């Protein structure tokens, strides 16, 4: 691998300035035959933008892949533009890289070689895509790499996010973040492009995003006061188009902050009045007019149990000065073992995260922000808790339930990884803190952050491997996200 080769751009004889009046648009077209963008050939008076450089990069990209020059001269550029056929990568190159690359490479190529400079990719998008693949190529874990690429959803690890606040990472494809109190959904797989800028919604909205099992569409859900917003994101052939789905508004009584869950077919939520509702999406958005269950107090947590096809929720109520927490099952498919149990707790702060074990009958329990306990849902088994000196930001079960991760900040910044069955600490990754999200169903990768430096870290917690931002990667600088 020619990693020690440093490539540099030289020859600035033709470089031109984009003045403020004609931003990034200059005249006097020249450039080199074969690498010249169509707008440079076609209309030299009209001027062209910095997208002309992207065209040239696209030509070089093809040449690197295939080993032959894409366009020998201006004529072949015209032929390409008039033929209206997309550029195909020759079979021998495909054989070399593997068939799973075909779609991705030709899409990327097409994006750079778009005839219309407006719709051509910007240089920072190109950079991010390349950097993404390059970074992944360095991970010595081919199976993870493969599975990610095949799914078309990319994980990833973001460069410095100055001024950004990351609110959530969903389904490893989207990052929700705020900037200047405005909210954005970024598509990770497509070079962190902004796919959605919800109008007039405050940050309490859009708390959740799920993938619909039946259609593969993405579903945003949030609540603003008394409403549940559902927004469907249409997907087309692995590439995420913009948010074209209709915004569906539904009216419900006060939904509790953390009590909203989705199992691929059904949405369930609890209300402050102690009702539990269910909405079955598979039967064309039928609304449940009646609560499926009633509790004594506010429903505070709610989650689906994967194995039992049942719903677990926790409600709280006050009796004098004492607060009670009651855990209950609701059986989507009747479960004879289910029963209620109560536990008295005083609530100081509640840790966000998945508190229910997805497969076993366990609950991850945080009586306060420095203590972690695991207990059996039926109240029969109980494990000794762990006490920490530092504050827990998030605790979570890994997607398959084999591990517990706790992320800490203040005093100690880091992530502890435990064996979920016996609470034995497996290892600790230091210097990273903040909320954490799981990136894959394979139980291996998780995204933590932003830390104090506003970086996101992708960690492979099984292999104790950790990936950090680009600033450590062969001195390659990555510009920040441009919000224009």
């Amino acid at each position, binding site marked *: 691998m020619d990693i020690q080769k*440093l490539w540099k751009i030289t020859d600035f004889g033709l470089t*031109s300035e984009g003045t403020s009046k004609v931003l990034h648009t200059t005249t006097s077209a020249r*450039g080199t035959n074969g690498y010249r963008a169509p707008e440079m050939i076609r209309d030299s008076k009209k001027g062209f933008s910095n997208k002309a450089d992207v065209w040239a990069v696209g030509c*070089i*990209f093809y040449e*690197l892949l295939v080993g032959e020059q894409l366009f020998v001269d201006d004529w072949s550029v015209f032929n390409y533009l008039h033929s209206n056929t997309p550029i195909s990568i020759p079979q021998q190159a495909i054989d070399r890289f593997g068939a799973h690359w075909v779609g991705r490479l030709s899409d990327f190529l097409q994006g750079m070689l778009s005839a219309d400079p407006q719709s051509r990719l910007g*240089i920072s998008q190109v950079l991010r895509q390349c950097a993404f693949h390059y970074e992944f*190529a360095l991970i010595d874990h081919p199976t993870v790499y493969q599975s990610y690429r095949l799914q078309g959803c990319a994980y990833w690890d973001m460069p410095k996010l100055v001024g950004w606040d990351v609110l959530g990472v969903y389904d490893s494809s989207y990052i929700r973040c705020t900037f200047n109190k405005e909210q954005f959904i970024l598509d990770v797989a497509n070079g962190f492009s902004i796919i959605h800028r919800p109008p007039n919604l405050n940050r309490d909205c859009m708390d959740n995003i799920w993938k619909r099992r039946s259609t593969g569409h993405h579903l945003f859900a949030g609540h603003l006061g008394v409403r549940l917003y559902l927004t469907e994101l249409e997907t087309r052939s692995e590439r995420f188009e913009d948010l074209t789905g209709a915004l569906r508004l539904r009216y419900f009584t006060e939904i509790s902050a953390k009590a909203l869950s989705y199992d691929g077919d059904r949405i369930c939520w609890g209300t402050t009045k102690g009702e539990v509702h269910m909405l079955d999406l598979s039967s064309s958005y039928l609304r449940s007019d009646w609560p499926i269950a009633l509790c004594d107090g506010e429903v505070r947590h709610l989650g689906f149990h994967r194995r039992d096809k049942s719903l677990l929720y926790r409600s709280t109520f006050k009796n004098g000065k004492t607060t009670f927490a009651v855990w209950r099952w609701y059986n989507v498919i009747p479960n004879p073992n289910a029963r209620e149990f109560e536990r008295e707790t005083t609530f100081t702060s509640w840790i966000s995260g998945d508190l229910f074990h997805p497969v076993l009958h366990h609950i991850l329990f945080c009586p306060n922000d420095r203590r972690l306990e695991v207990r059996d849902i039926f109240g029969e088994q109980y494990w000794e808790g762990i006490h920490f000196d530092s504050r827990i930001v998030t605790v979570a079960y890994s997607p398959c339930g084999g591990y517990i991760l706790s992320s800490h900040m203040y005093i100690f910044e880091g992530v502890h990884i435990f064996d979920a069955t016996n609470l034995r600490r497996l290892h600790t990754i230091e210097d990273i803190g903040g909320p954490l999200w799981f990136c894959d169903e394979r139980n291996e990768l998780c995204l933590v952050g932003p830390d104090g430096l506003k970086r996101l870290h992708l960690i492979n917690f099984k292999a104790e491997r950790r990936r950090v931002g680009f600033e450590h990667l062969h001195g390659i600088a990555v*510009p920040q996200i441009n919000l224009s």
Partner: protein
Amino acid sequence: MFGNPEGRDEIKKSFENEVRAISKLCKSNSHAHIVSVFRLGEVKDSALFYIDMELCDGNLDQFMRDRAAIELNDVWSVMVQITSGLAYIHSHGEVHRDIKPRNGKTQLQTYCSLSSSIHGYSKTLENH
């Protein structure tokens, strides 16, 4: 850069353009993927201009011709480097306009520590 006296003005215009871009973008070590320029000048009473820059050996064109097939990892590596240099240029409001494989100069890491100041100068004169 060099030329004959007749075309001096044209060359000078082009050179000045290059000087303008270089002084903005190529201050030594301004970016890892943009060539560093140490000195710029004009030899008195002649049509001779010089750019004193770090030594680069080889170019992308040669690199591609030397190899039958380039590994995908290398492709991404080259692409990241070129585009990150370009992103830097664009972020300064400039358009390169002449990106081609012969422009992407390669430089072996070992040369990085060498101060190629004198070397660059003499090379320019040799060309003349």
